[in-house]
């Protein structure tokens, strides 16, 4: 029942939630990879290599299209330090998607391709009246990259590749309540809505395959600062008395989409079994503050700055696939994700914690040209508590003290068509 409804939501909004990697990073590009704990940098599975390691694309024999869609179903429990009840997210399922297409000569040494994917994103809608309402009531952050890619096999054993990442669509919508009550006792609220400037970045990678049984990869994805220069500010339920202090109509803000370096190993003991191991290093320490600048004052000030002080973070991934029959391949894997968010710095828009992920997946071939991939990730965020004392010590009292516990399920479906 649930499974069916998930598949039906596949065509919904193009957005993603921060569920598959620390912070607001999303690593759900390839459905095959999703079934294997998210590994891929040391492998050359399919066209999704453009995301994981563009250097591996030239090693992917098939030319074709891979279309992937995921549904992220997040469930969260929150108890405030000063609060009486458990708060739960208003359920929302989001659907990060990806599209990869590659071209090139049958026996040639190069491959070209185009990739469209959502490497960052976040969507959360908190319960009505929850204790953190003055920090956040809802967020919807989207980033879609379009990436033309070129990969070249220098030898049979070594290939390189690079992509030009284009931040084609970036948008943010943040809403929170303002602690000012009107005559009816209702709190005012503020909504910030903006589109990011279009920007470029790049990724690059190398795949080295010393033997049929071993491959090594390294890839790098550059940082892009998503910059909103003139977003809209909207206030609701403001009293006439408070209104003069809340005159802003426009805001500017910058959110780093950090650089990521990954090394990966692939081991192929026999023709049917493939095992991959990846370690990601994400330079989250670029995220120091989230600062909004307003054209007119908000509560008496033209800027509002909130401390983030993220730390660089590592993710360890392990996964494998086994070809059961000529048509069916099954996959399994896991990942351990260190949170970039320090104790006492957890914000409601990224209620992050160390994550343990288990994954399952399968592919089935319908003839030579068409195959279907399925994957499911079970993401478990460790229970995380921060106290008001920690917030006071860190100067982070703009967020809420309490305990978060989140778990996420991400079913995905991929369609492959080879030319």
């Amino acid at each position, binding site marked *: 029942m649930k499974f069916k409804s998930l598949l039906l939501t596949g065509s919904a909004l193009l957005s993603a939630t921060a569920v598959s990697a620390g912070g607001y990073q999303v690593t759900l590009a390839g459905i095959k990879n999703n079934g294997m704990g998210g590994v891929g940098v040391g492998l050359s599975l399919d066209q999704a290599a453009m995301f994981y390691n563009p250097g591996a694309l030239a090693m992917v024999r098939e030319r074709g299209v891979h279309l992937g869609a995921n549904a992220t179903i997040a469930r*969260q429990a929150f108890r405030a330090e000063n609060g009486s009840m*458990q708060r739960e997210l208003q359920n929302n399922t989001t659907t990060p998607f990806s599209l990869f297409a590659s071209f090139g000569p049958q026996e040639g040494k190069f491959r070209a391709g185009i990739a469209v994917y959502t490497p960052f994103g976040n969507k959360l809608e908190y319960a009505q009246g929850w204790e*953190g309402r003055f920090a956040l009531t809802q967020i919807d952050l989207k980033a879609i990259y379009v990436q033309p890619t070129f990969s070249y096999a220098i030898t049979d054993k070594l290939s390189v590749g690079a992509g030009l990442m284009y931040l084609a669509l970036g948008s943010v919508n943040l809403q929170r309540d303002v602690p000012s009550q009107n*005559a009816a006792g209702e709190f005012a609220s503020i909504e910030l809505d903006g589109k990011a400037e279009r920007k470029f970045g790049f990724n690059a990678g190398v795949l080295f395959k010393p033997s049929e049984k071993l491959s090594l990869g390294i890839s790098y994805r550059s940082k892009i600062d998503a910059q909103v220069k003139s977003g809209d500010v909207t206030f609701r339920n403001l009293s*006439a*008395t408070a209104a003069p202090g809340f005159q802003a109509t426009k805001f500017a803000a910058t959110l780093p989409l950090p650089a990521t370096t990954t090394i990966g190993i692939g081991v192929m003991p026999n023709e049917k079994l493939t095992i991959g191991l990846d370690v990601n290093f994400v330079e989250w320490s670029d995220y120091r503050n989230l600062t909004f600048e307003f054209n007119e004052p908000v509560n008496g000030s033209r800027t509002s700055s909130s401390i983030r002080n993220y730390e660089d973070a590592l993710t360890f991934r392990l996964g494998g696939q086994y070809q059961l029959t000529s048509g069916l391949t099954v996959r399994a894997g896991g990942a351990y994700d260190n949170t970039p968010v320090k104790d006492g710095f957890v914000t409601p828009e990224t209620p992050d914690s160390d994550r343990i992920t288990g994954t399952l997946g399968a592919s089935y071939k319908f003839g030579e040209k068409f195959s279907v991939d399925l994957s499911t990730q*079970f993401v478990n965020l460790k229970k995380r508590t921060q106290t008001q004392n920690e917030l006071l010590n860190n100067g982070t*009292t703009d967020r809420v003290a309490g305990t978060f516990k989140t778990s996420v*399920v991400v079913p995905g479906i991929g369609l492959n068509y080879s030319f």
Partner: protein
Amino acid sequence: MNTFLKKNWPAAALLGLAACQPDLEAPRADKGTADFSSYVAVGNSLTAGFQSGGLANFGIETSYPAILAQQFAKVGGGEFVVPTFGPEQRDGSGYLKFYGINTLGSPIILSPGQSVTTTVAGESAPRTITNNPADYKFAFTGQKLPSGTSELTPFNTTQPNNLGVPGISVLSADRTASAIPQIAGAAQAYGAINNYYQRLLPAADRGVTDYTTFIGRKNATFFTCWLGNNDVLTYATNGAVVEPTNPFSGLSDTTSFGRGYRNIVRTMSKTGTVQGVVANIPNVTNVPYFTAVTVPTIIAGIKANPNIPNAAAASLYIVTGTGTVREATATDLLILPASAVIGTPSAGSPLPVGIGYSATAANPLPSKFVLDAAEITAIQTRTNQLNAIIAKTARQYKLGLADMNGFFSSVALGGIAINATANNAGFIRGNLFSLDGVHPTSRGYALIANEFIRVINTTYGATIPQVNPNEYNALLLP
């Protein structure tokens, strides 16, 4: 395809399981060694839930004892009766209302029946604003007490659990406190003087039973006592001027206070056998009543006033407690009502030179509108002396001590953050103080309740959950 679905059945089932809502166990709520089956609160206006210059149902229902009782109920606390007015009298004594900010930046605050002509910020022309008394559901009976104050409808169904009486001091609560017969007699007859006390008393007790005797009839298993504020506050809010008609308008002396306070606490604790928490007296000069109107702001306004001849040489002049006339300084504290008096015409000084303006010091601001440095020191010294008595009494009767003085000093110094909101001791926008500048808002009372809970948890090894103060109203802005 069929086999494919079959093979993935286990995955689908797993998916259903893992998509389940995570649950966080509710924190353990435990009463520790305390017994809340019969909780009784004694105290003054702060205990009664007085807000914005009046006592009404909305304040009584969010008084800190009512909030405490609601939390105690989670650890086996018993019924807690609050002395509300009937639904058709829910506005009780009436209270101040807020009509916005005028073009000068001053809040427009009117008592029932009061009217003012002013230009509201954002409007172009002045208009007359009236706080229509017909909008209130008062609880007045139409009778007067012997003291002349208006009688309120009695709450006589039963003796309530919240026994807070606005205006009461230790000196007026206990007939054994003062050795001066007139003062002791007034304490005994307090039910004929104070309409809030009178409404709680059975008819036979009015004018003959003092507060200590009255509260002693209650069999508490746990009590809170927050008394003593009015032993300094009544004097301070009157600009350190004693009103000859009010025997309780001075600074209470330490001997009388100690005698009265110990008697009250001995009575409630049944000589140390009943558990409870007593709270001490916050530094009264930290409240907006004394900090909202500042001397530098007033003087800057005078010097910039084009209607005053030779304004640059003009300033604000006050009468000190010793009768000296001098220019006001930044260390003098003006009381909230002073803003409505400064610059108004008086008999000897018609406009443009109003009260307090005169460069020749001919028409100074009367002493009752200002606390000068010597008066502030005297009030703070006495507050500290009384707090020492409170602390010693708490130890003597094995009670917890809620250091409200320390708590409010810290709020006044650096504000207090609650669940992503910033709150401070400022007037109107600080969220914690109501329109009278002395009494908290419901949110302020919720913070006080949390501070009591913290002390109770520490003292009695309990784990009573605190409330979210943001769920209680701060000032509602028109």
